[in-house]
């Protein structure tokens, strides 16, 4: 899947990378407080946050992976960006984000302590931190592997390069650098993918020409143009999973409860700007599948016999783009890689500093101290991520990493469903108590882990698989959500109601908007 690059391509890539790091450093040099570092001093405008939301959500692995999934399974993968994003972002904009912003919290776990108790905060922060720390290493390794495939650079060198570039500007500029570099990365990413789309469709004679070629491939591609897939089809994107697992659970959990996503809206100039950012992001999201999924279909029409579906995007880059534009696309790809890693790095540093250091060890730490701690934690987390990336690399090379990416995808499904259940109870039901929320959250996590174990190692239990689709993480999250909801309800009714100040935010309480 190696792509032939000329000196001009490398030059464009180098200019982009140097420009990104310089922008991050220029933003961060005058920071003085922790609020500057973690929430950009609450100065971010809606347009920057909206573009950052989209850039952070679409990683480099997504560009390659979504294109590959469209090549293999058809347009149904676009559900992840359409019904799997837009409705949840709209609901978040008008219901949840205004409350988060008004209460003045730094993190979602901090909000959960205000609504429930310290145990709920610690449990949620712990789950997110474990996930983010592991995911940073995985993202670094996955990025290095893809850069190696495109450029034939050593994977180890790619890990160091990505970590150094992202680490430097995230260390210096915190959330503000992350958001403004994301703006550039989002624009470059959209531009790069748009080139592929336009040139690819023009080459095939438009949408009609492309679908004609795909349908001519026979039965295996007969439904590649369908967005909705019947429940009995051998596809990971069947409609019950998409509707009940993705649209109603995982997607709201992601857009409402993911610290790496929500944090940038907490740094908005005003409550209205935080809301506007989410609506702007939802509008951009309508565009994204057209840019990343349809190229997979273009590749299918042009190269129907690729051995590896993930080679769809690189094949298009090699065949469609001239010198110079290849460098621009590569910059778009690297932009997508960096925008996801920087968001998780900054969010993880915020969790450690705010929900562990300030909450449990130094409650009286001043804002300048928090800035120093936040930057130190960023360095430590980046070092951890590099180390973990090399562990994953070793496992991958020794054949011990079979399914490790899917496991880490599943890891988020373990707790995001239960987290959403407790957030919803906290917002919609005044009678929900801290004990109920914690019990529900822990029970939900136990249910999803239990389902995962029973399904993955069903042979050891002398059983058939529980689910009949590959990697059924959408279903884990659905059942975990339902369990958490039920247990939260029962335990809340059996325990003493929370005092009225815990739910004052529902009546418009909190910091001034």
């Amino acid at each position, binding site marked *: 899947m190696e792509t032939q690059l000329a000196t001009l391509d490398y030059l464009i890539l180098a200019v982009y990378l140097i420009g990104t790091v310089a922008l991050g450093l220029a933003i961060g040099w005058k920071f003085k407080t922790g609020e500057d570092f973690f929430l950009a001093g609450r100065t971010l405008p809606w347009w920057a946050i909206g573009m950052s939301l989209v850039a952070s959500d679409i990683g480099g692995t997504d560009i390659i992976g979504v294109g590959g999934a469209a090549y293999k399974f058809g347009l149904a993968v676009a559900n992840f960006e359409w019904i799997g994003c837009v409705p949840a972002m709209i*609901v978040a904009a008008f219901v949840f984000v205004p409350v988060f912003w008004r209460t003045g919290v730094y993190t979602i776990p901090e909000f959960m302590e205000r609504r429930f108790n310290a145990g709920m905060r610690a449990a949620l922060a712990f789950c997110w931190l474990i996930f983010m720390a592991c995911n940073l290493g995985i993202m670094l390794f996955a990025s290095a592997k893809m850069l190696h495939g495109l450029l034939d650079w050593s994977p180890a060198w790619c890990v160091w390069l990505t970590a150094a570039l992202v680490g430097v500007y995230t260390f210096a500029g915190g959330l503000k650098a992350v958001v403004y570099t994301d703006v550039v990365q989002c624009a470059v990413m959209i531009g790069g993918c748009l080139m592929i789309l336009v040139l690819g469709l023009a080459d095939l004679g438009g949408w009609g020409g492309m679908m004609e070629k795909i349908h001519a491939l026979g039965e295996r591609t007969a439904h590649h143009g369908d967005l909705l897939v019947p429940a009995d089809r051998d596809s990971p994107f069947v409609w019950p999973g998409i509707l009940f697992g993705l649209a109603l659970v995982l997607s709201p959990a992601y857009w409402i409860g993911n610290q790496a996503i929500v944090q940038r809206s907490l740094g908005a100039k005003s409550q209205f700007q935080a809301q506007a950012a989410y609506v702007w992001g939802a509008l951009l999201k309508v565009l994204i599948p057209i840019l990343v999924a349809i190229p997979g279909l273009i590749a299918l029409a042009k190269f129907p016999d690729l051995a590896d579906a993930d080679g769809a995007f690189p094949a298009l880059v090699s065949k469609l783009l001239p010198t110079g534009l290849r460098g621009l696309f590569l910059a778009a790809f690297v932009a997508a890689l960096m925008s996801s890693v920087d968001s998780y790095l900054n969010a993880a540093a915020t969790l450690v500093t705010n929900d562990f250091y300030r909450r449990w060890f130094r409650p009286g730490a001043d804002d300048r101290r928090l800035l120093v701690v936040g930057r130190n934690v960023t360095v430590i987390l980046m070092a951890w991520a590099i180390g973990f990336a090399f562990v994953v690399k070793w496992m991958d090379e020794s054949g011990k990493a079979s399914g490790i990416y899917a496991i880490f995808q599943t890891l988020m499904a373990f707790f995001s469903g239960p987290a959403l259940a407790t957030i919803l109870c906290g917002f919609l039901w005044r009678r929900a108590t801290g004990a109920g929320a914690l019990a529900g959250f822990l029970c939900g996590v136990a249910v999803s882990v239990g389902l995962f174990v029973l399904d993955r190692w069903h042979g050891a239990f002398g059983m058939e698989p529980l689910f009949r689709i590959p990697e059924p993480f959408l279903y884990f999250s659905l059942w975990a959500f339902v369990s958490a909801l039920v247990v939260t309800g029962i335990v809340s009714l059996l325990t003493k109601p929370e005092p009225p100040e815990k739910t004052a935010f529902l009546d418009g309480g909190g910091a001034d908007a």
Partner: protein
Amino acid sequence: MTPLHYFGGAIRDAMTAVPMIWVRALFVGLLLALLAWVLCLPRGRVTPPGAADAEARGWSSNLKLWAALALGLQIAIYLIF
């Protein structure tokens, strides 16, 4: 086969029996319901604070319209594909 398998099998059979035209109606119906909710939101929740500011900026500062546009595009997509 455990009770979990029977339970899962029953749900899967029920989902498989739903005609795809109903499935499409369900997806579009959910989006329409959300669109109706957005259109019914009070002005105070979808415009910047301060009536003078909101009036000066006109319709472009009304988030309801942009959210409705995003949802309208979604409805069109799920009707076509």
